[in-house]
Each structure stands twice: as C-alpha cells, then as structure tokens.
C-alpha cells in the first residue's frame, strides 16, 4: 500500500489496481462452500427449515461483521435493526394480504433495507460520539428503546401476542412459500444471502473497505492521511443496519410471523457470539460461525435441554482465552499451509 501511494504515477495506479484485483479474486474453497450450501436444499429438503434459519443468522452475522469486524464498532444492540426489519416486512406483508406490491417479498426486503439503513444512518451519529464503552451502552440503549416501543405500540405490532396474519406473496411473482416445501424458503434466503454477500465482498475489497481497515488499525493516522473517519464509519454502520434489516425481513417472510422475540437482547448477544466464533472481520466467519452456532445449539439443547447456555458460555470463555481469530483463523491457517502461501488477511 505504502509503495503504491509513493508512486502516484500511472504505474503506481495500475499496481494499486492489480492489488485490489488480487484481493477480490475468488478462491476455490469459496466456490465449494456456496455450491455445497445450494446443494443442501436438494440433498436434505426436509431439513431446510433449519438451513433457512442458518442462512438468516448468517446474513445477520454478516451485517454485524461489517459493523464490528470492519468498522470496529462494538455493538451490543444490533438486534434493533434485525427486529425493525422483521416488523417492517411483516407489516408490509400483512397490509398486502398475500397479493400485490406490498406483499411482494422482494419489495418487502427493499423497504426493510431502506428503513433500517435510514434509521442506522441516523443512529450512527449517536453511536460514533463515544469510545468503546459508550458505544456499547448507546447501542444497547437504542435496542432497548426499540424493544420497548414495539411492546408499547401493541396496536401496530400485536405486542406480546406477536404480529398475526403475515402473508408474503409469491417470490418474484413465481414461487409461493410453502410449508410443505421448506427448501423454497431456504433457497430464497440463501439467494438473498449470496447476493448480499457478493456485494459486501465487493465493498470490503474496494478502496472504501480498505479505508475502513485503516481506520480500525489507527483512526488518528487514518485521519491524518486524508480519510474522513466519521463519514466512513457512518457509511459502514448504515450498511450493517440495512443488512440486519434484510435478515429480519427474511425471518418475518419465511416464518410468516413476527414477535417481540426479534428485539430481545439475546439476539444481539447471539449474533456477536457468532461473529467472534467464526472470526471477526472475515465475512466468511459469519457464515461458518452461524452454521457452527446452530449445530452446536442443536447438539447442546438436545443433550442438556435446560443448561445449554452453560456450555455456550464455557466455549465463549475458552475461545477468548485460547483461540484467537475464531474458526476462520484456524481455517485460513490451514489453507495457508496447504497452498504454501498466506491468504490475504
């Protein structure tokens, strides 16, 4: 990077371009992962409801990874946007009654993303004012206010009973959600995840993403070389909020139900755990972490129905103490050893 910055000639520019192109190159394990993910719908269609949950969780974790792993903002209230997205999509689908524009799932996703992005943009100014601890508490406070609002506005949200009568229409006007075929919902969620993942990957490997990395490394120095630190962080937080909103919207559409549970604190804590679990600032960590979390959850909940939280806590503590970089840290270490070269961090 320093090298390219020094040679601000056409030669330097092309080298910078080559550097970005190298970063953006797809590697074979990535293709394998996505092909496997899509194949699951056809190999185990009956278990697709579970896969659907994983895909939604992965998108939610991806959104937090942008905020936490790239923008470096420690958020304990990311569930606010997930819940907001779920309610926006749920209310839209209810208003449409299963047909027309309002019930169109794609339209629901777009509106959820727009609303959450907008709210995320507004709240990003509050969040960015403080240091880590203040951010933690502001994000938590904002999430609590959202949960409280949803609880109070029972005439709109259904309150503690949940939002009834969510009727999403046909996907792209073609395929209907069908509880006999959970693989439809899974393929829908996975496609959305895939598209948004590609977008996130492009953004992260763009100059904008690299500047985020610089800010995370040292905000003062990043400012000194001409990066508008707060503007960039606002952007990243907005993007993360919009992504979380889409994840919430997917949950509302594929389960045809929204309850206050979407805004509970444990959602924010779980998703943070997933990101740490998978590896912070890796994008793929969100997906691998979500899958591992869901599997682990199912295993632990089956083995010790009431006390699975204990093992979750233990894993967290051990992870922090002994394993740095999460699952992706281990995987990229292995990959580097196999191919004999270091993967771009």
């Amino acid at each position, binding site marked *: 990077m320093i090298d390219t910055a020094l040679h601000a000639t056409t030669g330097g520019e092309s080298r910078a371009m080559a550097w970005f192109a190298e970063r953006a190159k797809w590697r074979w394990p990535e293709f394998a992962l996505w092909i496997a993910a899509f194949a699951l719908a056809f190999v185990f269609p009956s278990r697709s409801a579970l896969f659907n949950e994983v895909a939604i969780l992965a998108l939610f974790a991806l959104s937090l990874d942008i905020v936490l792993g790239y923008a470096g903002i420690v958020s304990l209230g990311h569930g606010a946007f997930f819940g907001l997205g779920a309610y926006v999509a749920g209310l839209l689908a209810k208003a449409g009654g299963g047909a027309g524009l309002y019930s169109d799932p794609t339209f629901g996703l777009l509106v959820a993303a727009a609303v959450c992005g907008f709210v995320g943009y507004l709240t990003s100014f509050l969040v960015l004012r403080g240091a880590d601890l203040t951010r933690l508490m502001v994000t938590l406070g904002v999430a609590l206010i959202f949960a409280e609002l949803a609880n109070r506005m029972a005439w709109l949200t259904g309150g*503690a009973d949940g939002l009834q009568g969510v009727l999403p229409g046909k996907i792209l006007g073609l395929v209907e959600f069908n509880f006999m075929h959970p693989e439809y919902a899974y393929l829908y969620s996975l496609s959305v995840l895939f598209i948004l993942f590609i977008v996130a990957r492009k953004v992260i490997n763009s100059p904008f993403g690299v500047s985020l990395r610089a800010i995370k490394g040292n905000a003062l120095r990043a400012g000194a070389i001409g990066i508008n630190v707060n503007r960039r962080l606002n952007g990243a937080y907005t993007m993360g909020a919009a992504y979380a909103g889409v994840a919430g919207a997917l949950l509302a559409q594929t389960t045809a139900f929204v309850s206050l549970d979407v805004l509970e604190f444990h959602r924010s804590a779980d998703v943070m755990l997933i990101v740490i679990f998978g590896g912070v600032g890796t994008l793929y960590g969100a997906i691998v972490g979500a899958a591992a979390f869901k599997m682990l959850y199912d295993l632990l909940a089956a083995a010790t129905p009431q006390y699975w939280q204990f093992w979750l806590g233990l894993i967290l503590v051990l992870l922090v103490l002994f394993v740095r970089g999460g699952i992706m840290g281990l995987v990229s270490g292995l990959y580097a050893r196999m191919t004999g070269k270091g993967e771009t961090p």
Partner: protein
Amino acid sequence: MLTVLFDGIAYGMLLFVLAVGLSVTLGLMNFINLAHGAFAMAGGYIAVVMMQRFGLSLFWGLPVAFLVTAALGAFLERTLYVRLYDKPHLEQVMFTIGLVFMSVAGVDYFMGASPQIVDVPQSLDGNIDFGGVSLNKYRLFVIAFCAVLTLALQLGLSKTRFGSRLRAAVDDSRVARGLGINVTTIFALTFAFGSGLAGLGGALGAAIFSLDPQFPLKFMIYFLVVIAVGGTTTITGPFFASILLGVADVAGKYYTPTIAGHQIQIGGFVIYTIMVLVLIFRPQGLFGRAPGK
C-alpha cells in the same frame, strides 16, 4: 406518593451497593465487566442457602455473602480476569458475557429456575407508622444499612491511605505506577471488595427484588445505566445516579399499567432514553468530570 419515593430510595440504595464495585473497576482498569451481576447473584444465593439449608438468619447471611463473593472475586481476578486487561474491549465483553451465561445456567442447575423467596427476619417484618406514612421496616433497614455503608466508603476513599492510592490510580494509573503505587495489588483488592459489595447487595436485595438465575442479565442493564449516568470518576456520581434510577424505576412501575411477563421493561423507555441522552451530551456521566487526559 411518599411510599413510592421511599421504596425508590431503598431500591436506589441497593442499586448503588450492587453497582459501585463495577464503577470503580471500570474507572480503574478500563475493563468492561458485564459479569458483575453474577457476583451479586452469587451473594444472593449464598444468603438463600444459608437461610434455607442451615436455618441461619439474614443477619448472618449478609457478612458470609460478602466474604464468599469477595473471595470468589479475588480468585477469578487472579486466575482469569488478569489475562484480559490488555485485550481489546470486544474480547472483554465476550469473555464476561460467557461468564454470565455460565453462571445463569450453573445456578439454574443447582438451585432451580424458579425465583427464590427470602424470609425477612422477624424483627424487620411488617411496617411502622412514621408521621402518618406507613413504612416497611425491612426497606428502612436497607436504607440505613446502605447509607452507613456509603458513608464508610466515602470516608475510606477520601481519608485513608489506601483510598488516596486508589484515587490516584483511577486518575492516571501510569503516573501512579511511576510514583511507586502498586496498582496491580490495589486493583485486585478493589475488585475483590467490589465483588463482595455486589454479593452483599444481592443478599440484601434478595427479599426485595425476585432472585432467579436470570438476575445477571436483567441487572446488567441497570448497572450500565448507573455507570453511564453517574460516571466512573467518583462514587458520589453513581450514588446519585442509583437513587435517581431507583426512584424513576419504582415510579415507572407504579404509574404505568404492567403487562404480564414484561415487568422489567415497564417505565424502561424513559430510563433508556435518559441514558442515551446523557451518553450523547455528557459522555463522562452526569456527575463525572471530563477526563484530564
């Protein structure tokens, strides 16, 4: 009206005893300990076990709860927490949330998920009439006890040698170290003492708020509000913040209809809004002073 104020002050006093340890450790080591509530819960359950299994009165439960949680705090600080001081905040948050999850499930396993009922000692049961207002004896005891404790803390912090060292370390731990103050030992002692106070608060409060395994998660938010509003540089800040929060919380429960199962969030809206506003306009807390650095 006066009853609400009275209950609120009792509740606020309890919150202060529960949270003051967190405020000091946060100010001293800049360590985000979300597991502080777990120590309070431990103290509460120790008192419950003492009373239910061994038939001792609450008066014996209080010192035991303090000592055992202080020892527990000292042990965990030396073995686990000490390894995380120089780690990023994110890892501290994850680590302490992990501890919270473990304590929640662990207590659930040993003690059951249902809320514990604590019997107030005979001598403190019932109400007394005070100028036409009937006051609950136990709450009066809590207020008096916590007031004495607060005074002792304030005096200890301002008059003793340890107190001045602690204040120096909170102000600027690097310079304090340079002056030959053993900040590590001070921190370990303070951590243990703060954990003990949380345990004491948990034991004292077990009869007032319901004590169940979800306690650390429920109260984590309250602790953070106290710290956010009160700041971490003094102990008078958290004290006033606690009283404010206690009164606001009790008043909020009184004057708004409760919806079953969502009691903790009733009146919360105002409190959270205040917290966010305070954090935005006075990041150092309502009563704290701006850091000199």
